[in-house]
């Protein structure tokens, strides 16, 4: 443990040299807001954002399924069965988890995350095929899911199984990261973990050659549920 001496020495050295503090950063925030105000997707319709989300995510080897509230569970269940998924982490207490639960055939086992990670770490790492999450929102410009893990769907659901399946509602798609942060008021309170996911795990660490499935999920499926009313006309 470091004593107070080190802290005071470092802060003292900084204070001795620091210019007059300028704690008011409103001008800086105004510049940041100004820079992002003209982002290309700021004026786009929800459908255009969903299209862009699909385009960008597909470009990094994410499988995007466009569907609607009524038909996505059956569509996804079929796809899971075809992929040979036998054990999937899923929170049946959520509306989406329950909807998927009812249509999955008996051959696919639903695993709730009902005990702390340390109680079943090895099983989680070695026996689970897929994890299902519902994204808090999405970011169209970068093809990004905003995940806010909670007690029912903890962080490792989107991290440890080789397949991550995420559902995102088209109405929650923000234009860009700046818009997402402001609309959701991240600065006012953050969960212990907020994860932005923009594709399956990847690396270019061997001779700049892109390879997927480094340590995180090797595959990412994203179900974009079209729940936008005003664009239906």
């Amino acid at each position, binding site marked *: *443990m*470091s004593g107070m001496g*080190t802290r005071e*020495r*470092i*802060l003292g050295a*900084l*204070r*001795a*040299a*620091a210019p007059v503090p*300028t*704690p008011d*950063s409103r001008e*800086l*925030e105004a*510049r*940041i807001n100004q820079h*992002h105000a003209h982002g290309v997707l700021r004026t786009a319709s929800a459908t255009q954002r969903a299209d862009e989300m699909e385009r960008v995510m597909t470009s*990094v080897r994410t499988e995007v399924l466009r569907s609607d509230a009524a038909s996505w569970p059956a569509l996804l269940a079929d796809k899971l069965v075809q992929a040979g998924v036998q054990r999937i982490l899923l929170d049946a207490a959520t509306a989406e988890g329950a909807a998927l639960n009812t249509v999955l055939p008996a051959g696919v086992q639903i695993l709730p*995350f009902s005990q*702390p*990670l340390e109680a079943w*770490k090895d099983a989680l*790492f070695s026996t689970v095929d897929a994890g299902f999450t519902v994204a808090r929102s999405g970011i169209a410009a*970068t*093809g*990004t899911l905003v995940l806010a*893990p909670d*007690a029912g769907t*903890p*962080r*490792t659901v989107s*991290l440890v199984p080789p397949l991550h399946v995420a559902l995102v509602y088209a109405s929650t798609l923000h234009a860009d*990261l*700046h818009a997402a*942060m*402001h609309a959701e008021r*991240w*600065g006012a309170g*953050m969960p*212990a*973990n*907020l994860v*932005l996911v*923009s*594709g399956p*795990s*990847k*690396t*270019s*660490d*061997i*001779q*700049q*050659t892109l*390879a997927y499935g*480094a*340590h*995180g999920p090797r595959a990412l499926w994203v179900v974009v549920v079209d729940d936008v009313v005003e664009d239906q006309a």
Partner: protein
Amino acid sequence: MNARPMQFVSPADFRERVSGALRNQALRTSMRGAMDFLQTKRSTQFPDADELEQLRDLGEAIRQHALANLPDLLVQFEASLQSLGVHVHWASTADEANAIIHGIAQRRGARSIVKGKSMASEEVELNHYMSERGIDCVESDMGEYIVQLADEKPSHIVMPALHKTRADIGALFERHLPGTPFTEDVDTLILAGRRALRQKFADADIGLSGVNFAAADTGTLWLVENEGNGRLSTTVPDVHIALMGVEKVVARLEHIVPLASLLTRSATGQAITTYFNLITGPRRAGEMDGPREMHVVLLDNGRTQAYADQQLRATLQCIRCGACMNHCPVYERVGGHAYGTTYPGPIGKIISPHLLGLGETADLVTASSLCGACAEVCPVRIPIPSLLVRLRTEANRDPAQQVDQPLRGQGASFSRGERLVWRFWSGAFARPSAYRWFRWLATRLRAFTPSSQLGWTRHRTPLVPARRSLSDLLRERGQAE
């Protein structure tokens, strides 16, 4: 691991290593390929020059605001972390940082630490310190894992194994990973690395990571990565330790948005990386995973020296994207290992003198043509060439000279002879009569010019004054001097 791994090369032996690196044709070829790749990737991310310049202005302003308020922001950041239940530690030196981390490991009875990518941990030589004390540190970033297996250091701050070919890595994996036949297929190699490391995440007692950005207002650590090893290291083990330089903190979470965009686009030419992992404290009540104990170690290790000087403070604006090295003609030719420092390339040349002192690093600051490419691409507009000139000045300053904020190793390259020559030269230049006299003498005595002129003639023909000076020639043409 060897008892004396290669990290203990000295930056002071830079010149010898440079000669070897320049003769290494394989290294030259692989560096050229990597630089072309990274330069192209970056440029495709910035198609709109106006947007780029505006964003760089913004990045510079955000970092300068953070530095201007740094002591207050650190106090605020510490309070934010503590209110979340995070233990905050302060380390003046590499040894102090290592001792703090070792203390945590001892208290927890830890045998193994799995590491996300952290240049700060490279800087303090954490792996070596821990292994001497019986604690196994496993690098989990693929590039870091590769250089750890090879018992080397990263040659690039973003792409640690940049200097290795796929054949090198195939042979390395065949030697170190049981049941892995030689292959040059990258997908197969990555799969082998994934398999080798997977159990390490589940077994490790502690996860250690670096930090890309930190927000003082929310106490959030913002980690940027593609592989997921950083998320695994900071989620699966019961203890998470984050090691970060004191300069990483910014005032508000929203300030990170432009910086993160500049970082990923400048570093690897990605609009965003696969994961932005925003950590705000340890596991909360009712949650099922995430570390139950969390520590943040704030590292000085020479940063306050850079901070103390108004000009050199700009060094700390750095967001560690590596664009400066990706565009540096020197780095491209000698590779990262020649520098002998944790941070190679242009940023390494301006930060290392503060971490290690000019005594070790005085040669590094001379290894630049001052072409300015680094400053042109720097996303936060660090004026690297002028900082290099300044560091050269400090390296050549009389060690006895009293200055306000002396740099460690001031005068490491100082020579009385050289100072005399420059004094004579500036004196002659400042007085027209003296200069005319010198010119007359130099053109008459040119036959006596020595044929060996120290460093100059090692690679070049000797300098000999012209028979007639420019002024003489102009006068003959009837043009005024």
